[in-house]
């Protein structure tokens, strides 16, 4: 295990969190701790509830039950102003980058700086140059998001996410839709940022190569519940059939790919 100090207070902790949409329980009684400086990967199939879990942590959704604590503060119980304060210490990389189309690369990265700081324009320009060189995109300042590739957009999104020097960065499917080389480069960036800037990273993904490349610890989510939390090796050598099926991408196992609990005759009402 790398630079994690388990004796640390957890920076993010979920206590018995439950989220219900309509009559469906999406997240069921989840508890987990994420420590300062570690790269924590939440993996699971599509529809397993991992994106909902991330939205609960970032405060975009409120839990129906349980508590989400960021640095010991329950984000469902603090005022709007305090929540904004907490959100300012976050950075988030979205699945489709979510750059503002109407702004250039430079203006996109400048956005959180202009909104939340009183820095002078020339200092903001310097910060943008620094952040862009961290993600290897110097010289693209005046391009619009529509003029650059998907991988570059992700990197700009990353530069924007770290613009305010956050201590927690969330990554929603950082490598999805990218070719393996660019995906690998993004993984390396995530790893670099967390070691160079001691950022706590929370990554949501189902890309196994990425999982074992960057994770300090891994949580496997299935049907809204945590199957197991462990280090890279613990998960790799886990005896849990669900985890082994997920790692090896096997179509047979406890994760049911086809819904076969209703017979065809029954479905047709015969």
């Amino acid at each position, binding site marked *: 295990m790398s630079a994690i100090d388990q004796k640390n207070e957890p920076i993010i902790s979920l206590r018995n969190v439950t989220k219900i949409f309509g009559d469906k329980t999406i997240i069921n009684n989840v508890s987990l701790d994420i420590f300062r400086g570690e790269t924590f990967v939440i993996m699971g199939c599509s529809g397993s509830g991992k994106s909902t879990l991330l939205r609960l942590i*970032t405060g*975009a959704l409120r839990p129906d039950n349980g508590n989400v604590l960021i640095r010991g503060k329950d984000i469902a119980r603090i005022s709007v102003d305090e929540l*904004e*304060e907490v*959100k*300012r210490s*976050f950075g*988030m990389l*979205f*699945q*489709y980058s*979510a*750059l*503002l*189309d*109407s702004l250039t690369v430079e203006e996109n990265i400048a*956005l*959180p700086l202009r*909104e*939340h700081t009183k820095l002078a324009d020339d200092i903001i320009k310097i910060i943008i140059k620094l952040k862009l060189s961290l993600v290897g995109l110097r010289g693209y300042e005046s391009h619009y998001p529509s003029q650059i590739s998907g991988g570059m957009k992700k990197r700009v999104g990353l530069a924007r996410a770290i613009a305010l020097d956050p201590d927690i960065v969330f990554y929603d499917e950082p490598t999805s839709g990218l070719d393996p080389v660019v995906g690998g480069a993004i993984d390396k960036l995530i790893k670099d940022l967390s070691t160079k800037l001691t950022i706590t990273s929370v990554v949501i993904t189902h890309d196994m190569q990425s999982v074992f490349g960057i994770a300090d610890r891994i949580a496997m989510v299935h049907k809204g519940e945590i199957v197991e939390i462990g280090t890279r090796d613990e998960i790799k050598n886990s005896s849990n059939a669900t985890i082994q099926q997920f790692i090896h991408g096997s179509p047979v196992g406890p994760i049911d790919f086809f819904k076969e609990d209703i017979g065809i005759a029954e479905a047709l009402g015969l």
Partner: protein
Amino acid sequence: MAATIGRFIIEYFRWIKGIALLFYNILYWIFVGPFKGKAAHRQSIFQQMVFVGLHSVVIVFFVDIFTGIVMAMQTAYQLQRMGAVLYVASLVAVSLCRELSPVLTALVVAGRAGSAIAAELGTMKVTEQIEALETMAINPIRFLAVPRFLALAIMLPCLTVLGNISGIIGGFIVGTGSLHINPDLYMQTTFKYLELKDIYTGLIKAIVFGILIAIICCYEGLYTKGGAEGVGRATTRSVVASFIAVILADCVITGIFFFSKS
């Protein structure tokens, strides 16, 4: 059948509630936000004013000048029988300033700028850009809706003034060119019967129309659901709802002015 009507009514009230809530939030960010150090950006307000106002100048000019021309010809047809062709001038001016110019300008702007606002915000919504703003602790209403709201509320009266002038020019062309009214006399008759009240009631209408178009189009955009198809639906709905709202508001405001006089 009853269930369908019931659902329609519930949906309608939910829509009204959403619009009212958005209006409240916009007012909050305009009047309270600046005291909390969070004002809307002057630059983006200005950008929206250019988009809504300046880029609508040509279409507003053409719509109103031809309306003025048509108005002059139609009224002349009636007034000729009474030998009162001269009054074409005042009729055109008064009906344009009080009614036609504010309404036509509002409809043009709703179709041109309102639909663009709904489509832009809708696309931002379905591509996670709105969510990204929220995650960065940037309020989307302050950042996106307030500049558009202010731009429409300020620029629609300005465009209406332009519409008034171009309509009067249209009437002037017909009056002097085809009805052979002396140009000086035409202008004199225009301003003799055109009161200040006619102009400002028209401008009050324009402000209300601008506010309505802004809230409806921002609402449809910000609450778009369901991908590219959803954006298309939101755009259509925003234009249809804006048109209905403008005509309805016109009826109400005209009623208020009409009955409060007596």
